[in-house]
């Protein structure tokens, strides 16, 4: 088998900010897997939510169930007001923010120059 793991490439790193009763669309899961395969078959996902562990892991079922080849590492975190600080310095490539997450959170992340993508995780509009 051709092995290039010795090069020790960085994983593709994504953060997902989502609230309970919302879902990750399959397209986002697919997007992440494609990016991870391009980067070297490793994906690190930080899930920030108001859920208790391990339910945040279950949010990523669309990702887990469609993955057969990528090393997937899911780090779960409580959604906190200083989210920007939490994410800075972690080498995050993209932050997916569910559209019902407070505007303030979005602004803080934008201020820190993070690559934001807003997504619709369902119909229940909840405020953080």
């Amino acid at each position, binding site marked *: 088998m051709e*092995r290039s793991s010795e090069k020790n490439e960085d994983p593709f790193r994504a953060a997902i900010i989502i609230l309970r009763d919302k879902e990750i669309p399959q397209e986002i899961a697919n997007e992440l897997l494609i990016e991870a395969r391009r980067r070297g078959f*490793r994906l690190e996902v930080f899930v920030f939510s108001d859920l208790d562990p*391990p339910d945040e892991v279950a949010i990523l*079922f669309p990702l887990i169930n469609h993955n*057969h080849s990528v090393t*997937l590492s899911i780090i779960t975190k409580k959604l906190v007001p200083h989210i920007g600080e939490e994410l800075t310095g972690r080498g995050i490539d993209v932050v997916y923010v569910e559209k019902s997450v407070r505007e303030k959170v979005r602004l803080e992340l934008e201020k820190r120059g993070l690559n934001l993508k807003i997504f619709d995780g369902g119909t229940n509009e909840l405020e953080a």
Partner: protein
Amino acid sequence: MNLKPEVIITTDRTMMSNHHRKEFLGFVATGPAIGLPEKIWLWISSPKPKILDDGEPLEAPYGLRKVEAALLKSGIETKVVDPAYLNHYIETTKVLMIGHHDFFAYGPPSNEWWLITGKEPINRISFAKLMESQAIRRMKKNGVKIIVGGPAAWQWLYEREKWKKWGVDSVVDGESEKVIGKLVERALNGEEIPSYIYVGIKDVPSLEEIPEIVKPSVNGLVEIMRGCPRGCRFCSVTLRPLRFIPLEKIEREMLVNVKAGIKSGLLHSEDVLLYGADGVKPKEEPIMKLHEMALRHVEDLGWSHASMAAIRYAQEKYKLISKIMEMLKTKQDFLGVEVGLETGGLELAKKIMPAKSAPYPVEKWHETVEEAMKIMHENDVIPAVTLIIGMPEETEEDLLQTLELLDKIKGYRSLIVPMMFVPMGALKNKEFYKKEMIRDLHIQILYKTYQHSIYWAKEIVRKSYLKSPTYLPLRGVLEFFMWYVENKVEKIVKELPTLRSA
């Protein structure tokens, strides 16, 4: 060496046992206690192992031994501890690692016995008891990090309440040798660790990166290869790259067992006959060399799995089954192995396991199964044959063809174990088999496999498997159990119109 290292590896009683040196008896723990008290049931499947030093078992499941070896290779001191001795390690443990084949009895055949009897299987009960034991609760109170893994890691995704309740910090799914050292180091340093890790192809260990076990494995099990080239869609092993473990590495692991007094050997692979093969075509030389080497060291040898197609090909091309058995019979009467039949439905086979019959065409699947069963019967190879029902895309015609195939092989000594579909491998996003999905034809298949297995089980137990006088008490209990099941099933059959005419 520190006798109380900070990292402890364990599992529950149904796994931490040598199953009376009869690996197949371990499967008894996949069912609920029927007709017998739970204690006796547990004694049949999983007697306590010999303990060496402060809770360290003489032999431990191979997977735990691999994790132990990987940690030691990373410079992390660790020890495998029998579950009954965890209370000796409450104050010293910082990371507790737990492995299992079937944590919650969702795997085959546990889920099948559960579905049929409506009672929780013993392995599930036993694992819950371990997690709720005072020792683990006190460890958790002390801030111990719990990391779980093994072939059943995926089951935690369906048991999130228990994941939460028992305070599991991380679930590792896949071949962990390359990731486990870093993960445990982070846990020991009090750093943030992932809740879930799936090991992808980039982090699958190469041959050189697979560490050799340093302490004995249950019943002398040693791995001879990883991965499988057949690509069946329901199987997770097929997603792993194929690697043949070099003979000298296998020999060193066998010697670890032999030196510890374990004189039996069990060759583990998804298809033992594909060791050193040319694709799906077995080759004579590597197989013969493997067996010659093994027989220099052990007093009896078993195989974990083989395939119908490889058995047929190996015999037709090289008379290999006869040659191997001729060698083995200098030391033992029979060879036990698990073999997958999975379905008799040809259309279904084309969809979900098109290479299972290779190098023979899938259209000749029945012929391949019949031939392989005949070869095994004539050479005293006793297979436990697995059959899956409730697979996605299964049609009535597939089930009828399965019944037809079961008729064709009824004269061959074997046990047939029907299993309900469990979403794994490339089918992992499909639905589990549920009670409401049972069709009349499923019941007929279950009944036919029961009739087949009960008929042959009596002969196998008496003449082969438990022939030795040492096994007399165990044989007595099992014969009572078979008598009990026969009576029970006959009563049920009388009430089931589907079966009265079958």
